């Protein structure tokens, strides 16, 4: 029994070590870089994938997914917000061609189709821009960035009755499984300086 307990402790220690080693690697893998095109500041996030897991599963069900990106310029890590840009995209999947299509909401709307997953993700980031002149930051002033995406309403839409006080509504409410929370992911980086 003592031997079994010791073996279990060794396993736990190994697992903890793996977690400690793997975590910085995982964080380091999602790095942010910036570039400028005229007055527009753009970001690139290596390995910052969102067309995977439950999002991809939903797209392959034939449904579209709304993804909201939020790019925040910070004066220091976890510091005050200097400026924030929010942009929403609607992603869909061509079941037969197995390619993605993305539409940018807002003005001016833009859309593109026949993209692979990585290309669709990159296109979204390319269309998430921020005006450099509106930042009010000097060329030598360091700043930090936080990029967040949120995928809304991942759970299938339960077509329940509109009236809440009917027998059908009661059955619907009591039969619902635990709904998945909105999926969100973020990556931060810095310090940056304006190019």
């Amino acid at each position, binding site marked *: 029994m003592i031997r079994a307990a010791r073996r279990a402790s060794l396993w736990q220690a190994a697992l903890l070590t793996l977690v400690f080693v793997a975590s910085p690697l995982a964080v380091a893998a999602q790095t942010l870089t910036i570039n400028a095109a005229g007055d527009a500041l753009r970001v690139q996030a290596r390995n910052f994938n969102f067309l995977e897991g439950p999002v991809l599963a939903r797209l392959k069900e034939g449904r579209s997914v709304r993804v909201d990106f939020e790019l925040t310029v910070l004066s220091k890590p976890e510091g005050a917000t200097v400026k924030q840009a929010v942009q929403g995209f609607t992603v869909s999947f061509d079941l037969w061609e197995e390619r993605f299509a993305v539409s940018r909401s807002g003005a001016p709307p833009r859309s593109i189709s026949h993209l692979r997953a990585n290309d669709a993700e990159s296109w979204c980031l390319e269309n998430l821009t921020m005006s450099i002149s509106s930042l009010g930051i000097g060329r030598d002033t360091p700043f930090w960035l936080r990029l967040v995406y949120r995928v809304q309403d991942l759970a*299938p839409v339960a077509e329940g009755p509109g009236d809440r006080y009917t027998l059908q509504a009661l059955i619907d409410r009591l039969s619902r499984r635990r709904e998945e929370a909105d999926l969100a992911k973020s990556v931060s980086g810095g310090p940056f300086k304006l190019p």
Partner: protein
Amino acid sequence: MHSLRGKLIVAFIIATLVPLGATIWITTSLLERSLGYATTEELNRLSRTLEGTVRQFYQRERDSLKREALDSRVVPTAYPAASISNWPEDVRAFWESGETERSSLSGPGGDHLDFMRKSAGGVDVYRRDLGGIRMQELSEEFRRTRELVGSLESRDLRRGFTLTLLLLVAVVWVVSLAPILFIAHRISSPIRQLTAGLTGFAAGQWDRRLEKGRDDEVGQAVDAFNGMAEQLRRSRERLVYLTQMSSWQSLARKTAHELKNSLTPIRLTVEEMLARQPLADRAFMDQAVQIVVSEIETLERRVRAFSEFASEPPVNPEVFDLNVLIAERVALLKPAHPDTAYTFRLDVRGPRVHAGTDLVKGILTNLLENAAEAAGAGGSVMTVSHSQGGQVVVEVHDSGPGLNHEARRTLFEPTITFKKRGMGLGLSIARKNALLLGGDITLVNGELGGAGFRVTLPSAPESHAAAV
């Protein structure tokens, strides 16, 4: 839970929970079976299979079209760059993209497949009819099917139906428990009242009565309790009165005996003393002896009254018409009180009494005499007779001054008088005799402004009444 109410509630719970449990079990079993017919897994599998098949079809058609295009076996539609403004949207989007070739659906519902390829002067579009298979409609159908599968998988219908059933059953059960609590309270409340009444009665609360709330069995039980309590109270009062009377009679008997023993020699001695007195001194002696003899006679009357009070008259019950006896007693009384008016309100059926005639005569004489004396000259006396609850009732009312509280309290106690004449034993003797006959005398509200007495006497059985 030892109370009747608690037991009723427990009985309801036991009686309802078992069938409810059985009903729920049967319903959930049926539900289980019915849901077994609607298999989401089957739908899921079919949609996936269909999706794979359609994709294979599409990709085969796409690859085939591409091969034919590259082999120049299909004639393309050329879109020269010079006329880009007239291009269809999808062709222009392809031209602007970085791709060199692209396949896409076109036509109504996507029933055609286009293969677009950039050339030196523009875009060549190769088109193939998919044989009426509308791919975009199939996409939409697939999306709806997957949505349905997703919607079904997002729900545990078995759990939903079961919880709804349990919830509704619980609500109905709790709602039905409320009237049971009310009914249990209504049933147990009068029984608790009865129990409290009986307990109080056993503890000596002879005047305790219950309020009759309704006409069902419980109401009848309350009636029976009240009747029994009244009977017991009266019986007890009679018993107490008769016990007191027995003591008073014993005392009266002894007193009468002792007085009688002394009075006779006293009287003889005084008369002898008068006889032996010389004639010269007879005047004073005559007067003295007359006073002594008068007092002795008064004492003798008292002795006789005491003897009568102490006597146990024989009760020889017989059936007679009470109205006749009343008329006779009043006729005898009238000469002694000629200025008193006598009225009657008698039962025309002639109530038959089964009692000792002499004792009833004595009772009536006493009450009528008292009433006439109380009414005085110019006053009135009313006699009433009727039957009530298996008894015959006689009431005598007078227009006299009535009785005060003290008189009402000690009215039937012996040796107390409120008249100038008499011994004060008349009412005591009358009540004693009424009790001996199985009836009673009670004081009632006088209808003529004075006193009123009610005599109850046993009525004659039907067979006797018919025979007379």
